[in-house]
């Protein structure tokens, strides 16, 4: 039996909140052996992060942990900070989800890496500096000598996460805890960070605890997996076995929740809804002492697009590729040049007032279901807001009836329409946002990452809802996403965008089976690095 470095027994975590105590973790057992990779999988609120926060003594002030956490047999739970620091940062280290905020913005990278080295390993300033260069080199940051002098805001998200990893590795830990380390990053960056982690693991031989919601990562990296739900471990075991023969319903549901299936193509004679030619959006910034220096950023640079009734065009790209800007430019929510035609009307010459009656035919659904609903209106009021503009003759009662039926259409309980947004879950809010768009009976809906902020299982049901609505009403979708798995499940045609330009486009099968551009290949490889394709066949059995 391999030696166990971390052993958790009966760990529970409680938080005292305004509305009473909340038990985030309910007495779980968990073991990590030397040199193995353990994944803790669960959706948001499952307690997976809080478990490890408790191990590291990082719970929020109102949190309390009970039970036992042993590092190589020594009890570390509940140790005072001073005693805990013999393990934290030396034997057990941790990296976090938010690379943008996890580094101190006021200190140079070099100082931040050197600090734990000087404290723990007792290195001199110059020795720590030398070691910091080695570490940056280890995590493949180019030109490490110069990078030491950089401030965090001068680095990209991926680079910051590399710096975080370098800091975590500084004292040769036995255990590296990675709390969703790639969730906030673009898919291609994500892939490289994961490569780095597995490379470091083989080179340095530490154990890794991977906290994630992404089954793809689990499948590819983890030796053993724990599945958590509502503060409890519902299933654990070797990753392969767990994926092939899930015993618990919840695990099965998680695995099947991967977006799957394809949409049926629109009839070949279906009419064109929207055409766009040479759409351009340029942001201008003024810089320099007197703001004389002009700095043009071509966010969207000459994009053509056609979408027909019942068709979905997927727009794929990473953050900053201009895909969201394109979506807004097409709906004339943002100043743009070029030609956009809805059915047979040219949109570009229209002013705000002239656009207004057309808006009911072209709707938008946003990524963030928390930000896109006004917090002071009830769900019913939010859904019917468009009716106030486009059907001002309706009475209050008629509007309420329409709200109720719109709720039913998106599979929400109509009785909940008098509640406020904060009383709904993320997936429910996204349904409200969809209902708000659907109540106007639009012909075209621009979906801007509508599933990205949601848990996988919720994602799946939103994808199904969108497919259902499209079939029922013959909607045209422009589906903007960075998530190729979701795009594949929903689109007929794909456009790949990079730096404002379309680098590749084509029917979905063609793109996925035979991508021409290196960038497209990279995106696909990144999204399916888990061999999701492989497991899709395995899981495609019942219910699909």
């Amino acid at each position, binding site marked *: 039996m391999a030696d166990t470095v971390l052993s958790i027994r009966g760990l529970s975590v409680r938080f005292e909140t305004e509305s009473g105590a909340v038990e985030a973790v309910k007495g779980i057992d968990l073991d990590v052996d030397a040199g193995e990779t353990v994944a803790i999988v669960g959706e948001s609120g499952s307690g997976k992060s809080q478990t490890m926060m408790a191990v590291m003594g990082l719970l929020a002030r109102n949190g309390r942990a009970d039970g036992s956490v042993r590092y190589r047999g020594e009890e570390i739970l509940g140790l005072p900070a001073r005693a805990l620091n013999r393990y934290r940062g030396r034997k057990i280290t941790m990296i976090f989800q938010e690379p943008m905020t996890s580094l101190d913005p006021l200190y140079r990278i070099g100082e931040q890496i050197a600090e734990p080295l000087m404290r723990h390993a007792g290195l001199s300033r110059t020795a720590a500096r030398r070691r910091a260069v080695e570490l940056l080199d280890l995590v493949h940051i180019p030109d490490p000598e110069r990078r030491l002098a950089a401030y965090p805001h001068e680095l990209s998200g991926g680079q910051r996460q590399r710096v975080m990893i370098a800091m975590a590795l500084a004292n040769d830990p036995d255990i590296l805890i990675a709390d969703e380390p790639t969730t906030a990053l673009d898919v291609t960056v994500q892939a490289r960070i994961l490569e780095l982690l597995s490379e470091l693991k083989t080179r340095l031989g530490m154990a890794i605890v991977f906290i994630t919601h992404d089954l793809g990562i689990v499948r590819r990296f983890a030796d053993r997996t724990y599945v958590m739900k509502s503060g409890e471990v519902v299933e654990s075991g070797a990753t392969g076995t767990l994926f092939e023969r899930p015993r618990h319903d919840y695990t099965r*549901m998680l695995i099947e929740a991967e977006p799957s299936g394809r949409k049926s193509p629109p009839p070949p004679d279906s009419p064109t809804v929207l055409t766009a030619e040479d759409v351009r959006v340029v942001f201008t910034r003024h810089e320099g002492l007197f703001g004389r220096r002009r700095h043009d950023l071509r966010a969207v640079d000459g994009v053509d697009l056609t979408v027909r009734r019942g068709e979905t065009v997927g727009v794929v790209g990473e953050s900053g590729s201009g895909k969201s800007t394109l979506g807004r430019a097409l709906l004339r929510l943002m100043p743009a040049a070029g030609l956009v035609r809805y059915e047979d009307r040219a949109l570009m010459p229209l002013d705000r007032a002239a656009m207004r009656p057309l808006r009911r035919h*072209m709707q*938008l659904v*946003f990524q963030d279901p928390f930000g896109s*609903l*006004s917090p*002071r209106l009830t769900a019913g009021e939010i859904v019917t*807001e468009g009716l106030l503009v486009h059907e001002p003759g309706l009475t209050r009662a008629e509007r309420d009836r329409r709200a109720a039926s719109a709720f039913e259409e998106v599979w929400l309980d109509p009785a909940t329409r008098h509640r406020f947004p904060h009383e709904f*879950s993320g997936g429910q809010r996204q*349904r409200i946002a969809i209902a708000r768009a659907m109540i106007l009976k639009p012909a075209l809906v621009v979906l801007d990452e509508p599933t990205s902020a949601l848990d996988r299982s919720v994602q799946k049901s939103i994808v199904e809802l969108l497919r259902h609505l499209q079939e029922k009403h013959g909607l045209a979708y422009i589906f903007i996403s960075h998530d190729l798995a979701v795009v594949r499940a929903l689109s007929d045609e794909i456009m790949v965008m990079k730096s404002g330009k379309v680098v590749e486009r084509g029917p979905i099968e063609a793109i996925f089976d035979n991508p021409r551009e290196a960038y497209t290949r990279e995106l696909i490889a990144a999204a399916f690095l888990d061999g999701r394709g492989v497991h899709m066949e395995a899981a495609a059995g019942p219910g699909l």
Partner: protein
Amino acid sequence: MTDGTLATDAAAAKPAPAGHSLLALAMRRLLRNRAAVAGSIVLALITLFCVAGPWLSPHPYDRVYRSYVAMPPSLELYPKESALAGAMGEALERARLAMADFSVDGDSFRVTLRSDRPIDPRNTRYIERLDEFADPRVVETLDEGRTLVVAGRVNRQLFLMGTDRSGRDLMTRIMVGGRISLLVGLLATFVSLVIGVAYGAIAGFAGGRVDNLMMRFVDVLYSLPFVFFVILLVVYFGRDFVLIFVAIGAVEWLDMARIVRGQTLALKRREFVQAAEALGVGTGGILRRHIVPNLLGPVVVFVTLMVPKIILLESFLSFLGLGVQAPLTSWGVLISEGAANIQSAPYLIIFPSIFFVATLFALNFIGDGLRDALDPRDR
């Protein structure tokens, strides 16, 4: 697997009863904040005291009691029994009359006057002029008018908080001063609210170059020591009550404009505003349904915290002798007078300060409570 119950969030797991608006939740949090509740009660009591007090008070705020200059606070009625004979004697001396006999029985007095010549009955006005006595009338004329017996009432009065250096009742003056201070606080806040909200909302909603220019102007004004301009205004254009609050309001709108502009900009970027735009809602509708209701919270908080600031500023001006003019008064004026007499009559600064400080505390507590209630991030 196609129904909505897949959502595993805690919020979905336990259904909330319909319709807990943010406002209702904030109200509940506010009521749980003991300091804020206590502050509201104190503020309500002080406001009632100041607004209704002067009508109930037996003393007009500008009535000078020459007999009771700088009397310390007391629960006993004035005049004191021991002082009555002396006071009568002085009054008669001024009338060049001799006092033969003086007796007090309960609330009435009886005095016998004597002179070498017949006494004009109108001499009783020397007695009436005193604050201690009222309604003197001649009850008996003896010795062919050379002896008069005068009877009347002893005018018993209460000065709970004492009197000031001019012999005016301090409590009534605190009430009236409170009216002025609270009024200036409210009116000046209103002035700055109107200017600040309009300016900030326009800058924030217009955005871009207009916003840049408007905010640069605010920045310039910000770095001016503005209180000096208020002082200059007040000195040169006279100590007009209206001018004072216009001047203060005109200074204090800067903060309000900044806050409103920042909030408006932030709201404009929020997706629900973009969503409304995508629905085809016009500018007016967006402002009415989305911007203004969401601005309300921060503005309300800011206003509650601004009122005490302005009361402070008014009292600062009054302290320099630039506030409201006598016989009107404000808490600042009273504190200033008290500070000048701190050695001989410390109660003159203590009582106005208590009301003043209690009001400021109450407003600050309410403001802090509102902020915590509306923005529970810090809890």
